[in-house]
């Protein structure tokens, strides 16, 4: 083989070398002959281009030079340069009156010493520092030579367009004497002659004729052409691609011509050599190689089959086994003798082998098509095992089938694992959707099912939700332990299971809360009947460890039959009904009917109005004056929130406080009212009628709101004291430590602390001593009752006594009659507040009220 390759290679190599040598010799001869002519042609072309370019540049420079000389002789410019006038307005006027070539960008004016006086830009182009420097140098030169001079700045202004700055300087003459220089700066775009292959590539630049450095750096191949009489030259560096291209083309054509001439004799020689020498030799080699390769492949395949883990069987066309590998014996358990000549179907398949699979195999064999299946086989000891079997037909070189090859592997273990996995997955899914304790579906299961039912909802088959909440279940847990609680829950679950019909779904949604979803026939009647039954059963006593446990339950029902809410809202409606059942004393069934719906909608509407009211700032402070018991002077006001609706209706806190609290809007509302109140107080102070004190009702929680202190700190008044009224109940709860801290902080800021509704029975003396408020406000219920009952009088007296002993001032609230006022004053209350003196009033009314008080005081004075 190697011998044949080398003969072949040597033959063609020698032929190719001979051919190449002939071509190279011919090409060299052509190149040597043509080169001088090509170079001369190239040079002429470059010179021609350089002259064209120089003429173009001159056509740009010439008008600019003429203009510069013309402007330099402008009398107003002369006056400016010699200092007769201090401005160059005349020159500017002149400049505007002439057409300045577009290449000109600036004019510089120098005085007789070469000091720049001014410059004028006539285009948006800017010049470089190098250009500025060159302009100065040129001015100095022209002052000496007194000649119009053109210079280039040896730097491209813009590398992309290859534009170059040119300076034209003309002396400014006064009576024939040079007194200054006018220099124009213009930019000449030299372009970039980089054109397609086969053209001359040129790079032009402008140099000063006397600039030796520029000449030197131009390079030997550069062509230099003078630009008119400007004293500048154009240097053109050519990249001789034309020269190279023509040369290459010449040589290429020569080679092609010689190649064409030599191709025929070399071709004939090659063909004859191939036919007589190379081909017979190659034929012999190919046959030998093929035989060698087939032998090798067969031995390799046999070795692989013997070592394979899979069972391999080869049969004839009658499916009788003609060969098998050791793995087949190992897997099937049959010996080699028992295998040879047998039909695999008889040998391996048994009663549990899938008949359909066997039929599939037979059909594939008949059709000579490959097939892969999984089926049960039997070992020699009758043990079942699963195999994955692939059968393919064997064809000879001529494409004739001569047998089948079956490859199988034991997949019994894999089958076993799959079965286990399916079982495990089912258990996990069940757990995810059910409550572990009661076995009832859980909330997740409910949500999925409910959503599905809502989506498939049909009005002819109403949906109903029964919400169940066990009453006092916590007590069972607390008194009997959690096991008892679990027992109750399981019992209740069993009740649900017992009572519902097949289409209903009982759900434990958490803790002691259950839902029964009536997916079909969820009419109100059915739901109510079911609920009543369940209530009855749940209320029955439950035996636990010899004791009888009893729990009740509250039921809320909502049915789509009522058409009050959308089906998706049924759960919320049932919740609302359950809430009402709890409110009404528990252990009962409440249906979400028209009345309940009305209440819910009313609360929702109120909530929306409060939201809007907050946005529109409808919550305003009202003020109830506090009166000195002896002098009847106004000693302060209490700020009370009011909601003034767009129709001017004034709503007291009872109309919005509860809903606002449910919506967590109380803080926002408080802030709004306080901000307005602080502004009002500041306004009164500015008007010269400052209030002595203003009191705000704050909860203990609100005290910790940092915005509260910020708002107070930012108040814009100084003469009015600020007081916070805190409910007495603040002492009842476990107040956090920050309460003391906060109260101290308020005191440091000069604020007063008042205890509101004192006497409602919450405060201890210790708490009172701890807080040490500035004022106690007696609960108005005590004040109301004082004229009628001795107990109330005694209580009021006691409170006043306590306050006196702690040196705390006392305010009586709810002073509605003269009798109240007289009694409280006589018992020692310092301050009185109530309808007897004034109702809560708007800020406008308060202003009138105070004005009236002041007038009265003045009259008394």
């Amino acid at each position, binding site marked *: 083989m190697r011998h044949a390759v080398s003969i072949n290679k040597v033959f063609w190599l020698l032929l190719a070398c001979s051919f190449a040598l002939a071509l190279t010799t011919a090409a060299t001869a052509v190149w040597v002959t043509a080169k001088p002519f090509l170079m001369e042609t190239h040079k002429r072309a470059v010179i021609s281009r350089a002259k064209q370019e120089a003429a173009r540049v001159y056509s740009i420079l010439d008008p600019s030079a003429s203009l510069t000389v013309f402007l330099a002789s402008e*009398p107003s410019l*002369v006056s400016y340069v010699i200092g*007769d006038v201090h401005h160059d307005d*005349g020159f500017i006027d002149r400049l505007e009156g002439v057409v300045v070539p577009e290449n000109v960008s600036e004019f510089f004016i120098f005085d007789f010493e070469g000091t720049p006086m001014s410059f004028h830009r006539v285009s948006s182009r800017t010049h470089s520092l190098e250009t500025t420097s060159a302009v100065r140098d040129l001015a100095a030169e022209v002052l000496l030579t007194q000649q119009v001079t053109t210079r280039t700045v040896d730097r491209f202004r813009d590398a992309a367009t290859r534009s170059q700055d040119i300076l034209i300087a003309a002396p400014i003459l006064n009576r024939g004497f040079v007194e200054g220089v006018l220099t124009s700066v213009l930019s000449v775009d030299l372009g970039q002659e980089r054109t397609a292959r086969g053209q001359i590539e040129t790079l032009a630049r402008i140099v000063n004729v006397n600039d030796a450095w520029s000449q030197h750096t131009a390079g030997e191949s550069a062509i230099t052409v003078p630009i008119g009489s400007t004293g500048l030259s154009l240097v053109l560096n050519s990249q001789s691609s034309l020269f190279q291209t023509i040369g290459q083309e010449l040589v290429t054509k020569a080679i092609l011509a010689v190649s064409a001439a030599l191709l025929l004799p070399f071709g004939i020689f090659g063909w004859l050599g191939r036919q007589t020498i190379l081909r017979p030799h190659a034929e012999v080699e190919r046959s030998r190689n093929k035989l060698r390769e087939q032998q090798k492949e067969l031995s390799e395949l046999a070795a692989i089959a013997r070592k394979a883990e899979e069972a391999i069987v080869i049969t004839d066309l009658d499916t009788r086994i003609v060969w098998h590998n050791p793995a087949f014996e190992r897997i099937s358990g049959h010996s080699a003798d028992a295998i040879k000549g047998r039909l695999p179907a008889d040998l391996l398949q048994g009663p549990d082998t899938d008949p359909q699979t066997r039929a599939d195999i037979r059909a594939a064999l008949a059709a000579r098509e490959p097939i892969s299946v999984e089926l049960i086989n039997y070992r020699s000891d009758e043990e079942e095992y699963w195999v994955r079997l692939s059968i393919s037909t064997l064809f000879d070189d001529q494409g004739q089938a001569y047998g089948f090859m079956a490859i199988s592997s034991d997949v019994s273990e894999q089958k076993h694992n799959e079965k286990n996995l399916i079982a495990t997955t089912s258990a996990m899914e069940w757990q995810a959707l059910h409550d572990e304790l009661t076995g009832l579906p859980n909330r997740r299961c409910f949500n999925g099912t409910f959503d599905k039912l809502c989506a498939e909802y049909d009005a002819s088959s109403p949906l109903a939700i029964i919400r169940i909440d066990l009453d006092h279940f916590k007590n069972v847990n607390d008194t009997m332990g959690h096991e008892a609680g679990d027992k109750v829950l399981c019992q209740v679950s069993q009740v649900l299971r017992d009572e519902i019909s097949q289409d209903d779904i009982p759900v434990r949604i958490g803790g002691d809360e259950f839902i029964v979803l009536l997916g079909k026939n969820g009419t109100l009647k059915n739901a109510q009947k079911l609920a009543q039954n369940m209530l009855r059963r749940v209320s029955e006593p439950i035996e636990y460890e010899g004791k009888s446990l009893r729990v009740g339950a509250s039921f809320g029902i909502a049915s789509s039959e009522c058409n009050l809410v959308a089906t998706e809202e049924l759960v919320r409606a049932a919740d609302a009904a359950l809430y009402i059942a709890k409110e009404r004393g528990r252990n009962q069934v409440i249906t979400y009917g028209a009345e309940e719906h009305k209440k819910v909608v009313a609360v929702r509407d109120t909530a929306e109005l409060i939201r809007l009211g907050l946005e529109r700032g409808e919550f305003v402070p009202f003020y109830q004056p506090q009166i000195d018991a002896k002098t009847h002077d106004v000693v302060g006001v209490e700020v009370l929130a009011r909601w003034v609706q767009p129709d001017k209706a004034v709503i007291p806190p009872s109309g919005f406080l509860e809903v606002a609290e449910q919506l967590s809007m109380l803080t926002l509302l408080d802030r709004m009212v306080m901000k307005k109140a602080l502004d009002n107080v500041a306004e009164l102070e500015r008007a010269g009628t400052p209030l002595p004190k203003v009191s705000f009702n704050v909860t203990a929680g609100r005290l910790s709101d940092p915005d509260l202190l910020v708002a107070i700190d930012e108040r814009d008044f100084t003469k009015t004291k600020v007081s916070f009224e805190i409910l007495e109940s603040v002492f009842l709860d476990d107040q956090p430590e920050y309460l003391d801290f906060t109260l101290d902080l308020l005191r440091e800021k000069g604020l007063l602390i008042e205890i509101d509704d004192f006497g409602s029975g919450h405060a201890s003396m210790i708490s009172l001593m701890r807080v040490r408020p500035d004022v106690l406000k007696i609960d108005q219920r005590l004040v109301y009752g004082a004229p009628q009952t001795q107990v109330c009088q005694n209580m009021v007296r006691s409170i006043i006594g306590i306050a006196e002993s702690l040196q705390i001032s006392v305010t009586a609230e709810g002073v509605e009659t003269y009798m109240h006022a007289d009694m409280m004053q006589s018992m020692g209350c310092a301050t009185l507040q109530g309808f007897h003196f004034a109702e809560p009033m708007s800020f406008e009314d308060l202003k009138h009220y105070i004005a009236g008080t002041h007038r009265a005081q003045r009259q008394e004075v």
Partner: protein
Amino acid sequence: MHKPLHILAWTMLCCSFGQSAVAERLRLYIDADYSIARPAADAIELGVRSALSEVDYAIGDIELEVVPMDHRANSKRSMANLRAFENDPQALAVIGGVHSPPYLTNREHINDRGLLLLLPWSAAGPITRPEAGQVNWIFRLSVDDTKAGPFLVNHVLNNRRCQRTALLLVDTGWGRANRVTMLEAFREAKANEPVVFTFPTALGSASARTLAENVAGMDVDCAIMLSNAQEGALLVNELHELAPHIRLVSHWGIVSGDFRDMVSHTVRSDLQIEVLQTCGLKVERDGSTVLAQALRSASTQAHPFERLSDVHASTGFVHSYDLVKILLAAIAQTSGSDAWKHGSISERRNLLRVALEDLARPVEGILKTYNRPFGPFSDSAPDAHEALNGQDLCVASFAESGRLVLSEMADHDS
């Protein structure tokens, strides 16, 4: 006394003897246009040298040297000359040239830096009136345009009986200042308001022709011209061609150069050109010994001067002669003082300024005898730095030869 102190005392004594024995050399700069208006500059220098030669260029121990500097009618060059003067520790005073613009432009700098400037010819009024709060360092013995303007207006209205006058004014500070004073004079005389034309210093022939065409189209019978010689000559020639009927009275700027050579006698006589002058010619006519002495002092073998009209641009000669005589008197008055002897050049310039404002003795000049020609300047004494006044003005005309002769039509009383 210790030995080292002895040596020091002897050394100081010797040095002081050395100082007194050697004459001190100080310099007078002439800042004039030696290029364009060379005749004027030469006339000024001649007057200066003539006055100095009479005292052998020395006053006591002070030798005076003249340093001519050319400003080429360029205010910026004049400023460069003034800076050179300022930095020269031996430079005592500057004598200015014929042109007003350099000193109008540089006046603030001159007064600010304390540069003693004596003006024998430039006439613009504001030059000798400093900005408020500045010390006045500029003295003039020449026509003051605040007087010359009204004088010329009076001449055309009363002597020439002109009905409608054109004002041809060079567009410099000099021209602009005269425009104000002359228009005011016309108003005061309740005469027809003149037509005003301005032209730049570097007037070319094309522009001169355009200007002359405009003047010719304005129906004027007289013109008052403020111009230097060169552009004045251009304009006059064009006027003669386009409006030969006009009678022209010129400020004296035209005699600073070669006007008489550039304008033919025909043109001069057709236009009846008259020129403002001080009354040197009148003095000569009346026979002045000082003038005769001055001409003798100025004469050399090559250039003998017998008559004042022999001196080209004689105005400059007369004024600079008189001005340097006043300067010499001031030096003589103050140089004997201790302050002078020990003062720096700046202090000496200041002493000289003070002396000029308070000359104790009269000075005999060509034009007149100067009794306290200058005084301290103030708002109430705006002419304090003017040695001449309206009484010293005359009008001259050109003889055929080009010399100026006293005009027959006017005298200084007109």
